[in-house]
């Protein structure tokens, strides 16, 4: 039987309408789960001390993989022996996180038997995070998981588990097959995921459209974002229905009674001023449209993305360490993303080769590009510079030239100069 600790502070978190993790963990503790009881005990102590009580985990893992497990030990194990070791395993989630309960139970059954019974659905990268195992359980858990058809995700200086939005499975905006891209990349790059060999971590995230529900352009080194190059499809009858107030604005996002004010909500908010509504007809100057999604979001039944679909690729997003946060920068404005994604993978291999060669230890690709320049990066990827890659051209005069760009090169003879110019 698990020893239950007094947790007066945590008990305060059982109040209120939002689901309570304390109530949840307490129930499992009361059912006899010792790690749950001790986790609450240790957390209560952290609340009292206003300081955490975990030690850095050192190197733990499973044989054959360089990642997927994060080590963790309690610094007060004599008080809370159930969480003396509290390592996590990252389990690679199915793309866009649909689950068949029967399959999910394979994981929870193993985890109930060999681990703490606590988990994150899901970690920030996208994996299921099994939270709290003793060192000796790691190998058996891993073996049992793989026998059931589940594998670990990435950690360390490796490819991290790719993730994607719900995409075509249930979103009408999806311009690319986010789940297949995510799965295909995960399978293609298993070795890169499980055996860290790079300067630092690398993430792929796949969003089906520029709404970016998985925040790919803020959270992944390589963001693949669905887009289109032809015209937004317009259903004029549905436009009229929106204008007449027969269909709720914004897919009901402001309530089903909310009507579209076509001028205020659509035309005037279009960032490029490329929409017009005259004589009951909506027109879009598609050459000016930047495909921001706003009008489509407001009138999903009347407007749809075009039919010539593909993806924009943005490289280099990262959190602040060290030179400040970066968002991804547009490298490929448009690429067709069709199975088996060869053109995209060729780009990926070039990008990785360059980073592998030039990246310093713990330098994300975005920082590496910042240090060595976007021009060096696109050259290595065999891409031509185009104005779409920048918000504006440079405004400083320090233009670097390579010797071969200037006629005659850099080697000059001072005596030639002096023939024309007196000393």
């Amino acid at each position: 039987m698990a020893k239950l600790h007094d947790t007066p502070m945590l008990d305060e978190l059982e109040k209120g309408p939002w689901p309570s993790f304390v109530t949840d963990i307490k129930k499992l503790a009361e059912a006899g789960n010792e790690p749950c009881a001790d986790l609450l005990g240790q957390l209560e102590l952290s609340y009292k001390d206003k300081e955490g009580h975990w030690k850095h985990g050192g190197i733990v893992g499973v044989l054959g993989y360089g990642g997927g497990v994060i080590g963790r030990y309690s610094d007060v194990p004599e008080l809370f022996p159930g969480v003396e070791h509290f390592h996590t395993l990252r389990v690679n989630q199915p793309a866009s996180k649909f689950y068949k309960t029967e399959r999910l139970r394979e994981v929870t059954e193993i985890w109930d038997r060999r681990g703490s019974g606590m988990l994150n659905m899901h970690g920030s990268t996208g994996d299921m995070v099994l939270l709290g195992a003793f060192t000796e359980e790691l190998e058996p858990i891993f073996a049992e998981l793989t026998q059931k058809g589940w594998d670990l995700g990435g950690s360390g200086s490796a490819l991290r588990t790719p993730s994607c939005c719900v995409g075509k499975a249930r979103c009408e905006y999806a311009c690319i097959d986010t789940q297949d891209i995510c799965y295909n990349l995960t399978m293609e790059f298993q070795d890169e995921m499980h055996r860290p060999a790079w300067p630092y971590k690398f993430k792929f995230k796949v969003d089906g459209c520029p709404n970016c529900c998985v925040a790919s352009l803020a959270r992944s080194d390589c963001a693949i974002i669905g887009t289109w190059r032809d015209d937004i499809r317009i259903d004029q009858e549905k436009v009229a229905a929106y204008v007449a107030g027969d269909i709720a604005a914004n897919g009901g996002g402001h309530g089903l009674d909310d009507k579209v004010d076509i001028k205020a909500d659509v035309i005037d908010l279009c960032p490029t001023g490329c929409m017009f509504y005259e004589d009951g007809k909506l027109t879009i100057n598609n050459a000016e449209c930047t495909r921001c999604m706003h009008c489509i979001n407001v009138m999903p039944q009347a407007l749809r993305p075009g039919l010539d679909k593909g993806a924009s690729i943005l490289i280099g997003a990262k959190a602040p360490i060290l030179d400040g946060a970066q968002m991804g920068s547009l490298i490929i404005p448009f690429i067709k993303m069709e199975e088996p994604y060869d053109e995209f993978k060729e780009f990926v291999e070039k990008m990785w080769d360059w980073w592998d060669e030039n990246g310093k230890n713990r330098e994300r690709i975005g920082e590496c590009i910042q240090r060595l320049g976007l021009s060096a990066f696109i050259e290595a990827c065999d891409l031509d510079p185009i104005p779409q890659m920048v918000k504006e051209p440079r405004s400083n005069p320090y233009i670097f030239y390579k010797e071969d760009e200037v006629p005659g090169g850099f080697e000059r003879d001072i005596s030639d100069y002096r023939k024309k110019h007196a000393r």
Partner: protein
Amino acid sequence: MAEIVANKLTDIGPPKYDEMWPEVIKKNYGKWLYHEILEPGVLVHVSETGDKVWSLRCAATRLMTTMHLENICKIADQFGGGFFRFTTRNNVEFIIDDESKLEPLKKALADNGQLPLGGTGASVTNIVHTQGWVHCHTPAIDASGVVKAVMDELFDYFNSHKLPAQVRISLACCLNMCGAVHCSDISILGVHRKPPVIEHSHLDKMCEIPTTIAACPTAAIKPAKVDDFKSVAVNADRCMFCGNCYTMCPAMPLADAEGDGIALWVGGKVSNSKSMPMFSKLAVPYIPNEPPRWPTTVDTIKKIVEVYAGDAMKYERVGEWAQRIGWEKFFEKTGIEFSHHHIDDYRFAATTWRTSTQFKW
């Protein structure tokens, strides 16, 4: 056990996504025409084939037990043919293809009590967050507890559509920002404010000095001899309290009850809709840790949300609103104090200074 381990496989990858789809998703993959939110938390998607699916989005705690997950599975078995999904923002979605199951499912969710509907449209949806005191070794704050306290207070905005636009909140428990919170309408960030305290007597035994020095992003760590111990010294002026040294060297802890706390950031977005994606900007540099319910943090966030809700134009995100009215007005309207910490003094700082005569009083 040896036998189990001997049979292990590797590099098999995750189960293929389509194994996890209910029939209606399989049949209508890529054929969806449009969606409508019927009420907070309830979406209907309509397909070219005429099929419809109803999705019921419910709050979940990212940190959960197998017991809670089993309850979710049971509801999915009963109503969703044994299928369900999670959203990127830690919500659970039950998916049904038969309208007659809608009301019974809603009742089952209400009976469960831990699965409130909401998080759609112009709402505050679930908070994405990191580990905090539940698992990580460098956090300045807890994660799950702060999230619970904030969402209790904002619950009214979770299951309604009364905001000008969606408001995305996220939390990271130290400035490594595992959750990449730097592009959220409101982000809650754990911050340390004291350089590491060095255990000179043990440092050389517990840590490799060169890798410890190399771990510091600002080169604040130098080798030093202290009381005959081989150790290191930290240049406090250069330390930005990131904790990277502690990850390499357990003899350099940062956590400190008085030093640690919360910074609040506002106005970021990742969607490309209307304006381009933006970073969140500093609103409040420091609020003390106040477990178990962090009242000052909760009140400040509520205040920001309410002022935004009252002042922003329809469809305007928090950052778009602040940009339109001007940040000087943001501070005035929210009553948040502006201090020297708000003025950037890191690299590229000058790009954020005002280089114009245009401003508001």
